[in-house]
Structures are given as structure tokens and as C-alpha cells.
């Protein structure tokens, strides 16, 4: 059996899951090394007792590009664009950061002095109105090099309709550019909307050198240690790409962290005989929520990483809410209870960290209620100051509202859960899905702590906590398939498009995707090709994604599929209006060998009951049994109130709920 390591670098920890030659699995969790993530990666391999030289494959999830964008530690980028339009990236689309309040700022990724214009113009049908001034392209590219630009974007109006000018300008620029860091707007995203396409391209250019340098450092270190093979790197679409190709489309890695967790959830569901889940990953500062329907994670091409920075590439549709363990609770000026949006973050962190935090947080509330064990907090070195936490709850919430400390802490947990139900509704109900048809797949440090109460709040009947909830992202790397997504814009009435044209576009996409995916012969067992269309009724601007089971479909079949999808989403039929086919998409997925999740199971000798401890739930103290997750046998049943502890997570079973360990080691909780 091949030796494969999945390694995920998160904000706090670098996690590793290693499949050894004998099929067993080793785990490691080491601190992330922020200055150079490569050190942490090597440390994780060593911590798992492995030699880099003996590994056949490393699959890597990295936050290098995410952090680069959020902290604006980016490459200096120059832009060459259509005359008259250099400010598109700065003007955006007439927005403001918040609906209320006329404050806030926005800086585009490319400052104005590095945005240069050249004469050229296409019309909306792709006809040349002004020929490309080739001499100007070379002149401006040289000027941008002289100005210290490391990466270059070429972004012309209507290049999605006819990319000839972008291609030619790209040739000219590449001939003089000292590196491969030249991004053509249409190559990454061939869709209309100049601001979104141009911003996506500029994100790509700005993180390209960052990602490339990081991967070179990492590969050099691995090579030193005897591992000279290519890595696979996780993308935001939930698939992987060989490291030698990934920097070209570097923007696709920007939101890859949350995507790998969702892919692990999908793999776990498949082996559990389930197909519908809402994933719930709660960490210290934020919570990620996504939806998996029919075994397939929902994908969106309209995500933004920050205000004014849309990245319109197909990515796993993960919604982030700013509520995590560090969210601060208190009363507002009218005495109304609030949880968040302020967060104590990791510095100073919750009161329990003992780093100077003085205001009560969600994590502190969990300690007060006995849901967390003060002796087992991963982030805390010293003894937890329980009295200080209780005093803070009394001072900030309990005394003014006439509640006991426990009641105040319970109110904080309840309100935090209500806010999270809002995010869950947005990915489920508001898209036409009924939460009662889903399980809540809980992972991350704090997900299993809140999941049962949260599921009750929103009406989800079952919670699933995987065997290793704290290593879910690393598992996502280990199980991820290779993936290529291709998009072409048609934007014409369905009736006007010849059926053979649709088939030809999809066939060309299929061929391009297969060429990349099948190059990884050693890893890919089979290639799966998925086609879809993005459609709308004429006159609309939003799109609905419609799965196309075959490349050769009649217009009537496509129309019927669209109408069915539209009705499912809005309960509206619209026979009066014609359909428009905006985009044709193909995803080519290179399936890797299935990873048997039972390999993750600890021995489970059954002697798992650790004792009891007081747990506050439903307005009263209970003496709850405390179980050691790693020692639970398959098939074990535990009734709430109970606490199930494991190395990297704590699951709380509320009174009245019941958990069973299923045949692959998941906790399945009937809430």
C-alpha cells in the first residue's frame, strides 16, 4: 500500500494524518509555524514518526495565500487594461462596507499608479472596435517592471467574449517578464462582470509569488529530507492540483482551508451510508457552515474573501459567521443580552486563557457550565482561573439581569446557538432545503460541544461527530480527489443555441480537464466528468446552477431541468418567459483510491467510563457521566446527560439525547 500523508496547516495547529504501508494510520498535531509554515509541516511528519523520504505522496492544505490576502502581505502587482478603465478595480460597484454607517475604507490590490492603460477595445459580442496597441503593451509592461512589480495582470473589457487581445498582450508581456507571474483575466475566469473578473485576476497575481515561494521552500526542505516528489495541493473547490501547476491559478487556494473539512465530511458521509449534511466547524474566532446534498458539497462562484474582494471561482460554498469560542458576551446600552460580534480572539483570548482577557466569552461559559474540563484545555498552560470567570459572568450579565452565574452562562450559550442557526438557515432553508432532512456534521475544536443543543434549536434530528473531529481538515487532504473546473460563458437564449454547440463546448472542456487530471497516473483510479449549466430567465441577473447528466442534451431537456431547479428553489413557475443559458461548466474529478475510515479507529477496548462531573443543562445541575471517546467500542450507546472527551474535542450530550458509535466510529446522536 502507498504511504500517503494529508497535512493541513491551520491558524493554530498543523495536523497530519498518515496512511502507513500496512494500512494503519498515524496522527500528529503540532503548532503551526507562522513565519514559515514549512517548518511545521516537517515537524508534523517527524512527530508522526515518519521519514519524508519514505512517503509516496504528500497532500497539502495551506493557509499561506489566505493569510497573505487578509494581512495584505502580497506581491507588488501591475495591471495593464483597456484605455478608459484603469479605475474599475478601485471603483467597484458602488457599495459600502456596512449597510449603516458611512465609514470604512477600501484599498484595491493594485494601487492606481501601477494600473496602466493601453488602446484596445472589444464590444460585447467580441468584435474588435479598436485594435491592440502592441507597442504600448510592451512599453507599459517595462514601466511596471521598472516600478518594481513582481506580478502582472492583463485585464481587458469583454475578454470573455473574445480573448484575442488579452492573449496577444500576454505574449508580449511574457516575452519580457522575468517570471511566470503573468495572469490573463479570461484564463482564470471567462465570465462577464469586469470588476469581479479583474479582482479575481488581481488576487491571483498578488498571491502567486507568495504561494510559489512557499511551495519551493517546502519542497526544498522535503527534498533535503529525501522526499523529491511533487505534492498535491488543496484548492477551494475541494479538489487537489499538482504543486507544479497550482501557482498558475493561485487564487483557487485562497479559500481552501474550509473546503477540505467539507470534503472530509462528504467522504465520511459516503462511508456512513448518508448523503445529506450541514457541516458545522466552530473554532476560536469564527464558525464555518456548509451544505452537502446528495453527497455533493454545494459550490458557489460568488464568494468574497473580504469587503471589495470577490473571488468568482467555483469553490465549496462555505459561509463564515464571526461567532467562535472567543466571542464576547455582555449587555448593550439598553440592557439587552448580546453575544459578539466582538471577539477576544487568541490574544488576549477568553478569560480562561489567563492572558489578560476580562470579558466573558463563549468558551468561558462552557467552563462555568461544566461542559468543558478546565484541566484539559489545549491552549492553556496554567490553572484556569474559575473564580475570575464566575465573577465576570456575575458582574457583566448575571447581576444586572437578576440571573445566577449558571443561568447567565447558559443564556450566553443559547443566544450564541440562535445566531448560528441564522447561518445554517442561510445555507439550507433559504435555498429550499429542509434541515430535517440533514444531519449536523460537527467538527473543529468547539463544534461537538455545541452541536446537540444547536441541532435542537433548528430542528435537525441527528448530529454526527466523526472519529477525529480535530483532524477533519487533514482528513480532507487525505481523501481529496484531483479536480479541474472549467467555465465558458455563452449568455444567449437557450432557443438560439444549436444543440451541437452545447455538446462541443462541453466536449472541449472535458478534454482539457482530462488532460490535466490523467497526467497524475499513479494516483487517479478513474476520472469522473460532471457537466452543469448556469441559467436564468431572460431579464434576470442571478443564476441557477442546473446539473446536466450528459454532454449531448436536447434544448427541451435542458429547459425542463432548469424549470425544475427553479421551482425547487423559489416555488415559482415562469412559463411566460424564455430561458437564457449563461455559463456551461465541466468539472473533471480524478478519483483516488478510497481511504477506509475504519483505519482511523482507536483500539476501543470498551473500558471508557472515566467517572462523572457536574453539568449544567436545561436549567439544573446534573451529575453527568464522562466517557473517553478513544476507548468506546463500536456499537456503544451513551445516554445524555453525558460528556465524551477525546484528545482534540469534547462532545456534550444534552439530557434526553442518545449517542451510538456506528460501525466506522462516528458518534451518531439522536437529539
Amino acid at each position, binding site marked *: 500500500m502507498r504511504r500517503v500523508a494529508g497535512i493541513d496547516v491551520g491558524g493554530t495547529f498543523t495536523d497530519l494524518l498518515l496512511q502507513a504501508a500496512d494500512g494503519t494510520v498515524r496522527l500528529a498535531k503540532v503548532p503551526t509555524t507562522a513565519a514559515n509554515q514549512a517548518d511545521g509541516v516537517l515537524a508534523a511528519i517527524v512527530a508522526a514518526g515518519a521519514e519524508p523520504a519514505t512517503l509516496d505522496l504528500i497532500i497539502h492544505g495551506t493557509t499561506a495565500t489566505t493569510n497573505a490576502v487578509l494581512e495584505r502581505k502580497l506581491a507588488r502587482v501591475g495591471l495593464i487594461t483597456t*484605455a*478608459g*478603465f484603469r*479605475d*474599475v478595480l*478601485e*471603483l467597484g*460597484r*458602488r*457599495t*459600502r462596507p*456596512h*449597510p*449603516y454607517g*458611512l*465609514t*470604512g*475604507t*477600501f484599498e484595491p490590490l493594485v*494601487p*492606481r*499608479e501601477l494600473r496602466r492603460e493601453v488602446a484596445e477595445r472589444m*464590444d*460585447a459580442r467580441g468584435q474588435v*472596435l479598436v485594435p491592440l496597441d502592441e507597442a504600448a503593451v510592451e512599453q507599459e509592461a517595462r514601466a511596471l517592471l521598472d516600478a518594481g512589480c513582481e506580478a502582472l495582470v492583463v485585464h481587458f473589457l*469583454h475578454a*470573455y467574449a473574445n480573448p484575442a487581445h488579452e492573449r496577444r498582450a500576454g505574449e508580449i508581456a511574457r516575452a519580457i517578464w522575468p517570471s511566470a507571474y503573468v495572469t490573463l483575466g479570461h484564463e482564470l475566469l471567462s465570465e*462577464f462582470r*469586469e*470588476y*469581479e473578473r479583474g479582482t479575481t485576476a488581481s488576487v491571483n497575481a498578488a498571491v502567486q509569488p507568495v504561494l510559489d515561494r512557499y511551495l519551493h521552500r517546502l519542497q526544498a526542505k522535503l527534498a533535503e529530507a529525501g522526499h523529491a516528489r511533487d505534492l498535491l495541493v488543496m484548492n477551494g473547490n475541494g479538489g487537489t492540483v499538482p504543486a507544479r501547476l497550482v501557482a498558475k491559478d493561485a487564487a483557487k487556494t485562497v479559500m481552501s482551508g474550509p473546503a477540505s473539512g467539507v470534503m472530509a465530511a462528504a467522504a465520511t458521509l459516503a462511508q456512513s451510508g448518508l448523503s445529506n449534511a450541514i457541516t458545522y466547524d466552530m473554532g476560536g474566532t469564527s464558525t464555518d457552515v456548509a451544505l452537502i446534498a446528495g453527497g455533493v458539497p454545494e459550490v458557489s462562484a460568488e464568494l468574497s474573501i473580504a469587503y471589495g474582494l470577490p473571488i468568482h471561482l467555483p469553490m465549496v460554498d462555505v459561509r463564515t459567521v464571526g461567532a467562535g469560542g472567543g466571542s464576547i458576551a455582555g449587555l*448593550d*446600552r*439598553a*440592557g*439587552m*443580552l*448580546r453575544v459578539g460580534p466582538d471577539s477576544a480572539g487568541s490574544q488576549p483570548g477568553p478569560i480562561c486563557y489567563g492572558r489578560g482577557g476580562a470579558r466573558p466569552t463563549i468558551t468561558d461559559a462552557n467552563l462555568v457550565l461544566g461542559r468543558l474540563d478546565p484541566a484539559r484545555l489545549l491552549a492553556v498552560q496554567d490553572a484556569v482561573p474559575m473564580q475570575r470567570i464566575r465573577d465576570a459572568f456575575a458582574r457583566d450579565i448575571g447581576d444586572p*439581569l437578576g440571573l445566577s452565574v449558571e443561568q447567565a452562562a447558559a443564556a450566553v450559550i*443559547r*443566544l450564541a446557538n*440562535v*445566531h448560528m*442557526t*441564522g447561518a445554517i*438557515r*442561510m445555507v439550507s*432553508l*433559504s435555498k429550499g432545503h429542509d434541515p430535517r432532512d440533514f444531519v449536523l456534521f460537527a467538527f473543529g475544536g468547539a463544534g461537538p460541544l455545541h452541536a446537540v443543543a444547536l441541532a435542537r434549536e433548528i430542528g435537525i434530528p441527528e448530529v454526527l461527530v466523526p472519529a477525529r473531529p480535530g483532524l477533519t481538515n487533514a482528513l480532507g487532504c487525505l481523501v481529496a480527489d484531483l479536480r479541474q473546473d472549467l467555465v465558458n460563458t455563452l449568455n444567449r437564449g437557450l432557443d438560439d443555441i444549436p444543440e451541437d454547440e452545447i455538446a462541443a463546448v462541453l466536449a472541449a472542456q472535458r478534454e482539457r480537464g482530462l488532460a490535466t487530471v490523467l497526467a497524475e497516473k499513479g494516483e487517479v483510479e478513474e476520472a469522473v466528468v460532471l457537466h452543469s449549466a448556469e441559467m436564468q*430567465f431572460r*431579464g*434576470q*441577473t*442571478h443564476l441557477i446552477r442546473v446539473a446536466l447528466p450528459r454532454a449531448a442534451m436536447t434544448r427541451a431537456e435542458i429547459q425542463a431541468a432548469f424549470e425544475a431547479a427553479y421551482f425547487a*428553489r*423559489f*416555488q*415559482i413557475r*415562469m412559463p411566460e*418567459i424564455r430561458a437564457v443559458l449563461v455559463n456551461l461548466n465541466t468539472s473533471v474529478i480524478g478519483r483516488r483510491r478510497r481511504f477506509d475510515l475504519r483505519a482511523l479507529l482507536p483500539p476501543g477496548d470498551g473500558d471508557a467510563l472515566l467517572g462523572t462531573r457536574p453539568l449544567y443543562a436545561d436549567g439544573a445541575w446534573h451529575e453527568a457521566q464522562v466517557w473517553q471517546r478513544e476507548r468506546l467500542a463500536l456499537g456503544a450507546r451513551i445516554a445524555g446527560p453525558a460528556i465524551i472527551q477525546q484528545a482534540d474535542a469534547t462532545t456534550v450530550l444534552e439530557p434526553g439525547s442518545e449517542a451510538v458509535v456506528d460501525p466506522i466510529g462516528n458518534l451518531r446522536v439522536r437529539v
Partner: protein
Amino acid sequence: MTEIDPLTLAVIQAGLQQVCNEMDIAFSRAAFSPVIAEADDRSDGIYGAEDGALIAQGELGLPVFVGTMAHSAAHLARLICEGSVAPPEPGDIYIVNDPYLGGTHLMDVRFARPVFVDGTLFCWLQNTGHWPDIGGMVPGGFSAHATEVEQEGLRLPPVKLFKRGELDREILAIIQSNIRVAEQRIGDIKAQAAALLVGESRLRELIARHGAAALQAAIAGIRARAAERMRAEIRRIPDGVYTSEAFVDSDGVVNQPLRIALTVAKRDETLTFDLSGSSPPCQGPMNSVWATTCSAIYLAVKHVFPHVPINAGTFEPLEVIRPEGTFLDARYPRPVSGCAAEVSQRIAEAVFLALAQAIPEELWAAPAGTSGNFALGGVDPARNTGYVMYQITGGGYGGNAHDDGLTNGCSTIGISKTAPVEVMEQYFPVLFRRFAIHEGSGGAGQRRGGFGVHYEVELLRGEAKASFVMDHGRFGPPGVLGGQPGAPNVVRLHRGGVTTVPEHLSKDQGLRLVAGDRVEVMTPGGGGYGDPLMRDRVMVARDVTRGYYTAEQAERLFGPFA
């Protein structure tokens, strides 16, 4: 009334908010008109059964509808009570766009759906959507020259468009016979109704969960808390009387400025707004109806205190004196099409300028404050179809205590995005020659204003008529604390080699264009905040490097910097 515990209050408040947010999203995603689907020119909320008082409103809705929809719901409840409108039955949806019954301009069409619990009216769900056309003398409804409301379009009193769940085809036929591009409206009507349906099913889950009585008690409690929260914000403002003024360029008919005179009195926990010194009613369409005038003040205060939740209680501590006899309290048949998009922003500007004297560290200089409506209507000979194109634009925001103003920020009363150039050129026979920063437009200050937009669009085929309803063409948005005003709005027409400027600078209608003619617009920059000489010299030099100002401009506005 039973006392509801604070946790349940917070839980129910979040629940009601989610109901409204889901209605907002459902409406936009299913709508057809770009003005709703792309620009989010709509709002959804929950209103009291008897008094129409605001219970909750979507966070993603257009700010100017914050106050108007409660007025509209109150009028509907009153008319039903008086017997002049048929009483509600389950499944009904009333349609109304009468500006004088709690509205804005005629294009803003309200749908109201009663929610019954055990046979008793529990509340109203209501939404407003901006229809791209409602008939009248110009495509799109933004007439600059109308002198009575009948010229502005079809006016609907509250009538049941849906009766017990069934669409009334006869009323629909009347509406469709009176508006342009009518065939697409059916999609918007279905979307607007479906959003209320989504809201009702979510609301019923809340009712089932908590019980109708507990929910009503919680609604009262939430309202009291919001009022208390607003009072707490007001207490921080120093007691005193603060005056300000703002000017609308003209009413579109008589070419002289309209004055908004505002006196804000702060005493204890109350803010009193008095506009009674403002200009008398005007001939052209820049009159504002009472609901819109109130709403403009509410949304301005909400901008200043963005964290106060919105419901009827939020505005209890705000006393607005009805400015009878002024153009800010328009009565039938005064034309009003400019009130929602332009006059409301001048009122908000006056509120910002008054409060900037009281709590300068929390305020900003004046924002561009115009929606920049430019409508182009004609027939495309290549497609042989009629079209109505809208271009809206933002402008610079005012500088504030911490930052320079935002560039191309959305109108004060809106949250709507502009359509991409690539979309406009696909749909309409036009070519944009530029879409750029309005250089030099940011008002000088220690924190300068943001920049407006400078665009130029050419008609490619056939003939068309252009209309404009913009503002701040005569005076730029004022600065505060020694800051300079932003650059004013500029409209230029380049026709047959001749360049002209509209007589009223920012407002005109029916200007004929032929292929090759161009329209050029430069939107206002925001006002500056604080003394320009205090601006960091590094930032002045940076702004010159970026070409925001020429070196000469910068030297003149900000003093020596090199």
C-alpha cells in the same frame, strides 16, 4: 402583559430578524428587474396588525424604506378600519403605491400580506420593490419636469392583487396596460409575492415555537428595549440646539435652489427635528411626502448609530415636527418622483451636518448624496426592440475622524450596486468610453473626501432620449470642521460636435441623442473633514503619485508638500 425573560427576548428578536432577511434574499434572487435583483432596491418587514408599527425589518433592505413601510402599513390598517378598503382574508395580498399613503415615489410598489393566527389578524408582512417603470411621461418614472402626480405614472390605492391566494388577472391587466416593458413585470410580481410567502412560513415556525401570546409580548419588550437603546445613544450627545442647511439644485421646472433648513434640538433623551423653515412646495417633482421626510431623518440617525436594532421603538425618542407648508410635506397632487432618490439624501445631509457640530468624532463630512439617475430610452434598430436603460452611480463619501472618505460609495439612502459596463453593453446599444475616478473631486481636509465617478457613454445605433435626475450640481457636498466641499456633479452632452450642459445642471428630460452622440457625467466627491493643512504630507504626496490630484491642485488645496 406577561414579562418575558431577557434571553427569550434576544432569541425572538434574532428569529424575527432572520424571517425578514430571508424575505429580502428570496425577493432579490427571484426578481427579474436588475434594479431589484442586482441593485437590491427593495425591503421586507413585519408590521403590527392594528397600527402598522414596525416589528422587524430586513438588514439587507434599502434604508429609505425603513420609515416609509410603517407609514404605509398604518394607512392600510386605518383604511380597512374605516371601511374604505376591503378587510383582509387569509392568502390576500394588497398592492399599493400611492405616495400620499405612506409612500415614496410611484415606482416603489408595496405588497402587504395579512398573517392570521386562529382567525385573528396577528401582523402584516410587507415588502416594497422598485419597479423599473410605472407609466407616466418618461420611461422609468424619473421625470424632471412633471408638475402633477398624474404625469408621473399609474397610482394604485390599496387593492387586493391576490385574493385568497389567487392572482386577480383583471387588476393585473389594468396595471400591465399602463406601464412600459410590461411583459417582464409578471416575474417581479411573482417574486415579490413569493418573498412574503417565504416570510409567512418562517414566521409560523416562530409562532409554533413560542406561542402567539408570548411572541406578542416579546415584540412589545423588544420595542421598549430598542427605544431605551436609542435613548442611551442620545444621552451621549451634548444638550443644545444645532442648525444646518442643505440645498437641492432646483425642482426641475423653476431653476432656483430649494432650501432645507434643519434645527436639531437635543434635550435629555430626545432629539427634535424641525424642518419648518424650509422652502415652500415646488412646481416640479422635488417635493417630498411626509413618510419619506420622516424616513430620511430615521435613516440618517441609523447611519450615525448603526448598532441600534430597527423597530418602532428605535425612533420613539426622535420627534419630527411635521413641516407643513414646505416642500417636505407634499400633498396631492404635488409631483414627488425626486423625493426618494434625491431630496431624502439632502435631508440626511442636513442631519449629518447638524450632528457633526454635536459629536464631531462620530460623524463625517457630507457624502455625494445623489443616486445619479440617468435614463436612456429608445428603440434599438439592430434588434427592433424598445429599451429603457438606467445608469446609477455613487460618489465620494465625506472624510471622518479616522479615515478618508470612501470612493464611489453607494447613495446614502441605498445599498444598491451598479450594473457592470459589460452587462450594460450587452443589453443596450451603447459603448462606454470611460468609467473612471473623478479626479480632484474629493473635498480637501485633514481626512479628505472620497472620489466620484467620471463616465462617458456613446449611443451606437438609432435615436434615444436621455433624462437625468441627479443633484449637487450647483454646490458640492460641504466639508466640516474646516474641510472643503467635494466637487459638484457635472453633466455634459456631446451632440453633433457641440457640447452643452443642462439648464438645471443636474436635472433634465427628453434630450434627443442620435448615434455617435455622447453623455458625460462626473459625480460629486465627498466633503473634507478638518483643516487640509493638517493632512499628513506623506498622504498628500501619495495622492499626487496616484493621480487623484495634480501637483498644482494638491499644493493649492493642501499647502506645500514636496
